[in-house]
């Protein structure tokens, strides 16, 4: 059904690089799921059903990884033999960390004051930063500067977590 030994890029027939053709990715994803999804094999025997289940889960995992800008960067490093997700290594540039710490404090204050507009502004700020950072990650990864890429990807992950936490705080305000 599918070759499980291929990496995610190979599975979708895409070049192994950070810049991605989203239309081609989605097209490849839909084509593959159209073949392997368990619904396509619902009337088949147990062995084929089990295989379809594994293949479909693998295709979903590959798509999730490649369509997410942070996960894609981490995965690309992983393919090139570098682990960017090791939590015991927390070194990040001091200026970057200071800036995020300030943002966290501002977020806490805004949450205490139930100031949804301030939280929204912070979210926008973080999102803009992430866009700039993604461009840098792309230059480093597709220019083969792996050590720089690793540090930038970790910053990107940090921003993603911050954006998630801001969303959660905003959700509390919006639901209330």
């Amino acid at each position: 059904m599918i070759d499980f030994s291929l990496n995610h890029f190979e599975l979708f027939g895409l070049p192994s690089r950070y810049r991605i053709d989203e239309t081609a990715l989605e097209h490849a994803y839909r084509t593959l799921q159209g073949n392997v999804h368990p619904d396509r094999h619902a009337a088949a025997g147990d062995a084929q059903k089990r295989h379809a289940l594994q293949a479909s889960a693998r295709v979903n995992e590959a798509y999730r990884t490649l369509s997410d800008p942070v996960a894609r960067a981490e995965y690309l490093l992983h393919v090139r033999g570098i682990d960017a997700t090791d939590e015991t290594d927390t070194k990040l540039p001091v200026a970057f960390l200071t800036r995020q710490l300030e943002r966290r404090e501002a977020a806490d204050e805004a949450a205490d004051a139930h100031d949804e507009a301030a939280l929204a502004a912070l979210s926008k700020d973080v999102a803009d930063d992430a866009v700039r950072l993604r461009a840098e990650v792309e230059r480093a990864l597709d220019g083969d500067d792996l050590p720089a890429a690793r540090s930038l990807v970790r910053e990107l992950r940090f921003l993603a977590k911050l954006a998630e936490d801001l969303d959660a705080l905003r959700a509390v305000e919006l639901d209330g």
Partner: protein
Amino acid sequence: MTLFQISEPGESPLPHARKRAIGIDLGTTNSLVATVRNGLAVVLPDDEGQPLVPSVVRYGEQGIDVGYSALARAAQDPGNTIVSVKRLMGRGLADVGDDRRYPYRFVEGEGIIRIATRAGVKTPVEISAEILQALRKRAEASLGGDIDGAIVTVPAYFDDAQRQATKDAARLAGLTVLRLLNEPTAAAIAYGLDNASEGTYAVFDLGGGTFDISILKLSRGVFEVLATNGDSALGGDDFDHRVFCWALEQTKVPPLSAADARQLMTRARDAKEMLTGHDAAPIAAELSAGTIDAMLTSATFTDITRTLVAKTLAPVKRALRDAKLTPADIKGVVLVGGATRMPQIRRAVAEFFGQPPLTNLNPDEVVAIGAAIQANKLVGNRDGADWLLLDVIPLSLGIETMGGLSEKIVPRNSTIPVARAQEFTTFKDGQTAMALHVVQGEREKVSDCRSLARFELRGIPPMVAGAARIRVSFDVDADGLLSVSAREQTTGLEASIVVKPSYGLTDGEIARMLQDSFAHASDDAQARALAEARVDAERIIVATQSALAVDADLLAGDERAAIDRALDDVRRMSDGDDRAALAKAVAALNNATGAFAARRMDRGVARALTGKRVDALG
């Protein structure tokens, strides 16, 4: 005598041989079964033409009643008449909350709910299986044989225990489950295929006992669920209950008996339904505790249910946020579920999305219709359009870690099927066993999440704390059902797992229930013989009618009258339950048409001969 046709394994007997596939909407208040017939999805009605089966099971003195007959006795026999059992699926006694809302005798204990009835202790799985079995028999009688596969729908927001319970009930009812399908997704299929619409849609599904909101993207033959949210304990029943409480407050009637409560609840529901088309509805009931006589206006109804309506909008906002969309991005809003007929719901939805909702399909039937369409496809009947359905898991799945916190392994709204793994390690030196607690929900603390199961991984070789690497794998299949395995990485030790579902049935219990159901096997065999006889009868009626349409001139007046009488007899017997009488009527019809058939054959041969040149016969 009938010769059964047996085909090569794995092959359809004939290219055009259709398999019998059904879609079942197992609802809180009502259930339905639908199928695709001549390319059209239709709900299968009962003998009286009623499409709905009230989801009510009564364990009576004479046997088990399901549907209208059970509902009719609900007020007299509330303790043995189980309504809205869907609310109890995959739940424990602690989840029931105020159990005075229920007139049942719950059996104390941990885990799954058990109800003491006249027929013994019953679980919600067994009670639901009775409803499913009634639907299965209806479908078999209508389709003329065994059902090859069924799709049973579940609320999108059902957790793993509720899904598993539904699948167990279907197995117990003798159904081959092709798939559990989320109700809003089923509704989208019913709408999408009719309207061939591209774009992003919201499906707002307020049923009798559950509320779902799903955001779906329809494009180029793919139904992709972007996000789903909801409340598995909010539905039309809650609106009835508000009216019930209001009526009690108005009339200051003392606490009610179970039978009184059931009667007043029925009046409350009638009033709610009446307010869909009227400005006021009377609530009158003669109860043993006193007389209720009140007039509920639609303004008051809107007022006392305001918080319930607001409760539906919070999940809508969350789903949109998860999909990273705003109300303006939604091209259309589909309403599903009988409770969406309430004007205050329609107003709230229209106001929130800034557009009137789509209501061109019957909100009671749309889920069963969509399920039937998908079942027809999954069973392998290749006709009509092709499409792919990509659904999601509604609630995050995680593992309890130190400090009683949930470590999420599969986040909510992940496209299914999904397989994820995470490594954990030991906490103490020399630790040889690890207890794993699987939970579902969005909250950080395990105590705020739903407990799904507990596992133990034993036989870990003694190592220093933090040295063992235990990889826990979560696999969620296309039904949204989870299985978990664990493996110690350094030794390759596979988990000697003891699964203890927190709110489910063990495989042993299911086996016992299946065993018990064999006791009723002779009933089933009779029902099946009757169904087959009905199909035979239908076939001969159609054959006789088409013969009469072509060759009626071959019959003398009295011959024709005899055939018409015999036809009427078969039709009448076919509506009854007496298989022997039906067989006799069919035999009589065969007899009455014997001479007619012979004359038609002669005429047919004559026509064939005159239509062909003589040399073609050689």
